[in-house]
């Protein structure tokens, strides 16, 4: 039985059904003690569902098959959400779950605060938080209010929160989808530290390179079925992609044949203040221009002001103090997203749950929400035309759902992102701003999104794309603007771009 002792977790013929969807079908594989085990698969392949079975979101009895943990069957009860954690299974969900108005320490101990005579012992709470944070070398203050942290640090707090009970297994569902390279490196360091402490890690991501940096073995899921489990050393990127999507994928970025025209959109030395705190400057001088039918990539570290910039342009964030925005040579002042769209400017927001989707509504209603003017004759909305147009996007991006009437919150994370993208691609603006559009989207669907972006720009639409993936910026843009500390720090042609040059500008180490 020495063999079995090596296996900390085993899935045996696990099947999970939702109305109209089989999320997992007969999946079986094992995870060895102390390893970092990658799980990859297309959007909707069932990765998050599998993890939610482990954490008790879908308790024993709501799925078929068996989960063996430490040699005995895991039977989590519906009534207790802390049960998995008490047994050493910690999970960091795909979507952040922190309460933004509370401190780091309060978040880490949410639901199990140390109490004395019914009163929370704050000193102990913060001391314990500090102990966890320093054990794994996380550089965050326990007293900081969460909403003031960048996404990278929030992700660390999520991990600390999951870990604060003696975790044996740590599940990370797409922890890096919102992180930039530098922050990913940090996270990798933390994971390696955890491994030294004997924690087994399950790691889900759509950034496939990461698997080769950190995992010991990889399981591939496709359509809810287990395809293979292999040691990482026996795989390479091409092999992984083809097992994952079920066909060869020669290139990651489709070639467009664009010929950018005259300048249509200009931003000149833009300065803006935080709308809630007029002491703080959130933009400290940004300038760029955008030509017709061009894709302009905006690179930069997390927190370099990229989202603040586009939200300000869109009339939804900073208070502009100086600088100009010009469209077709005429200066414009945009006070709300409504006005922005009247000018022909659309924005794919960064945060799909808060800003992108009406989760309780159907896929169809979500896709058409920004585009109802296209389908309205007099007062009436032509719902057949609406359905037809939405279907064509849903098909080309392969949104995985029983039909378009399924509510958006029943979709997997990546498929939700595809719905947001569809909505904005349909809006056919003059200028389309995309804030990290492919976050959490699988390689195959990314390719389709890129193709649609190429089509749009070839038809004369100008695109501004923010991305934390350097490869994506370099692969898709005509020109690249790099931001550093709320300023634009240089714009250059993609032919002159190297990852080193971008990183240097982004970190402000050298200028030019």
């Amino acid at each position, binding site marked *: 039985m020495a063999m079995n002792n090596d296996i900390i977790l085993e899935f045996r013929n696990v099947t999970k059904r939702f*109305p109209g*969807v089989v999320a997992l079908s007969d999946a079986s594989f094992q995870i060895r003690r102390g390893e970092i085990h990658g799980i990859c698969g297309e959007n909707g392949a069932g990765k998050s569902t599998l993890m939610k079975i482990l954490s008790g979101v879908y308790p024993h009895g709501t799925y078929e098959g068996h989960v063996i943990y430490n040699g005995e069957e895991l039977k989590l009860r519906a009534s207790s959400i802390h049960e998995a954690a008490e047994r050493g299974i910690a999970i960091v969900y795909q979507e952040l779950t922190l309460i933004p108005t509370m401190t780091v320490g309060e978040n880490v101990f949410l639901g199990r605060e140390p109490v004395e005579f019914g009163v929370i012992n704050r000193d102990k709470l913060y001391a314990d938080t500090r102990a966890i944070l320093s054990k794994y070398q996380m550089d965050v203050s326990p007293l900081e209010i969460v909403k003031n942290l960048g996404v990278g640090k929030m992700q660390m707090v999520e991990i600390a929160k999951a870990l604060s009970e003696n975790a044996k297994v740590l599940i990370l569902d797409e922890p890096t989808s919102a992180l930039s390279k530098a922050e990913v490196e940090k996270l990798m360091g933390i994971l390696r530290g955890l491994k030294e402490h004997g924690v087994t890690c399950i790691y889900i991501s759509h950034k496939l390179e990461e698997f080769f940096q950190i995992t010991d073995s990889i399981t591939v899921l496709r*359509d809810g079925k287990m395809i293979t489990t292999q040691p990482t050393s026996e795989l390479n990127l091409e092999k992984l992609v083809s097992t994952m999507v079920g066909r060869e994928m020669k290139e990651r970025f489709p070639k467009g044949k664009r010929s950018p025209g005259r300048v249509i959109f200009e931003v000149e030395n833009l300065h803006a203040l935080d709308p809630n705190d007029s002491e703080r400057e959130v933009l400290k001088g940004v300038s760029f221009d955008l030509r017709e039918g061009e894709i302009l990539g905006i690179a930069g570290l997390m927190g370099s002001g990229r989202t603040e910039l586009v939200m300000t342009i*869109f009339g*939804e964030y900073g208070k502009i103090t100086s600088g100009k925005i010009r469209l077709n040579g005429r200066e414009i002042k945009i006070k*709300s*997203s*409504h006005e*922005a*769209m*009247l000018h022909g400017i*659309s*924005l794919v*927001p960064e945060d799909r749950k*808060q*800003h*992108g*989707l*009406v*989760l*309780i*509504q159907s896929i*169809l*209603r979500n896709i058409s*929400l*920004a585009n*109802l*003017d296209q389908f*309205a004759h007099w*007062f*009436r*909305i*032509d*719902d*057949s*035309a609406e*359905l*037809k147009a939405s*279907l064509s996007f*849903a*098909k080309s991006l*392969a*949104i*995985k*759902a029983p*039909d*378009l*009437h399924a509510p958006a919150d029943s979709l997997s994370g990546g498929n939700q992102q595809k719905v947001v993208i569809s*909505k904005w691609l349909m809006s056919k603006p003059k200028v389309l701003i995309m804030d990290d559009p492919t976050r959490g989207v699988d390689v195959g669907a990314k390719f389709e999104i890129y193709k649609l972006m190429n089509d749009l720009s070839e038809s004369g639409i100008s695109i501004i794309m923010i991305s934390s993936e350097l490869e994506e910026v370099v692969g898709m843009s005509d020109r690249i603007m790099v931001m550093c500390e709320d300023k634009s720090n240089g714009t250059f042609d993609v032919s002159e771009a190297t990852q080193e040059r971008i990183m240097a500008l982004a970190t402000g180490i050298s200028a030019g």
Partner: protein
Amino acid sequence: MSVTSTSPTTNPLSDFAKRLRANFQTYALIVATVIIWVGFSVWSGGTYLGAQNFSNIFRQMTITALLSVGMVLVIVTGHIDLSVGKLAGFVSVVVAYMQATYWPKVLPGHELLTTILSVLIGLAVGALYGVFQGYVIAHLRVPAFIVTLGSFWILNGAILLRTAGKTIPANQPFLSVIAQGYLSPLVGWIVAIFVVGLLFITMFISRRRKVKYGFDLPPIYQDLTRTAFFAALVVAYVFYVNQYNGIQIPVLLLAVIAVAVAYISNNTRFGRYAYAIGGNREATRLSGVNIRGNIFMVFVLMGFLCGVSGVTLASYVGYGTIAAGTGYELDAIAACILGGTSTLGGIGTIPGAMIGGLIMASLTTGLQIMNVAPAWQYVLKGLVLVLAVYVDVYFKKNR
């Protein structure tokens, strides 16, 4: 298994099950109504469902149901309106005053004209008050709860000022027709035929449109059965109320308004945006929707419907009093909630609220017929509301 078709699958049985699940709440409400009707009929030895009482139940629900039509949209956008009862009451007092005191002095002898003018003024007062409230809520951004609570007192004061504590008669024959009139059986049948024709025509138009866009059509018998079912309901209703005085004019008014607003809420940008705002205000705003304009319009519509309700109220009771409209806001809200409107916003239908209102009216009438003491009527009404929502929550969790 990606998206291929959104049309119903070819398996009619599973499709039926799906539909049943999707509209579970509506069916549960209909079943509840039937149970209440049968229960009271047995208890009252048949009088309850006699033609006269049946006709009265529907007539009685109209005034608050008119308010619920607007309230659904108010709650769907994530707001609340506590002033609707008092606003309807104020309108009823204004209308009573106009037709009893003001116009007879200014334009003596023109009864029809002055009634029409009184009614128009009533509607205008409702709509204008809606404009005022909508402006304060949407543009000055004072929470609706506060604004409408304030309005509750303001309008209460206005009612006291206008009536000066006295009762104003509102019994011009032309005015009385609005809430007390009936269509003759023959006209009733003409209306029925018209409605049935309309049902079938819309069905065929909708099928034609589907074909035009290349969607699979559901089997014709399926559409026919459904349309025939609704047609049969209409015919049965008209047949039965014709046994008493005929189609009640206020019920006809309610039906027209409810259908119109339901149509608006599903098929226009205004309606779609209302639901989206309630579902996620930020995401809707970032989709370029003029949120404030939309919320403003919801309150204007609500005000106008208060006007309609107030005119009906004046006609129904035949006078304007200091107590006019008291408590109607709560009845209207309760009807929406019973009908499945979510207090969190984003979810709710007008047909649901209409059935909710019907349930409340059926219950009230039944308890009155059985001479249950008013105190117990309140207790029962409260229990039914909470129980109904609990049952709903329970089934949602366990589905």
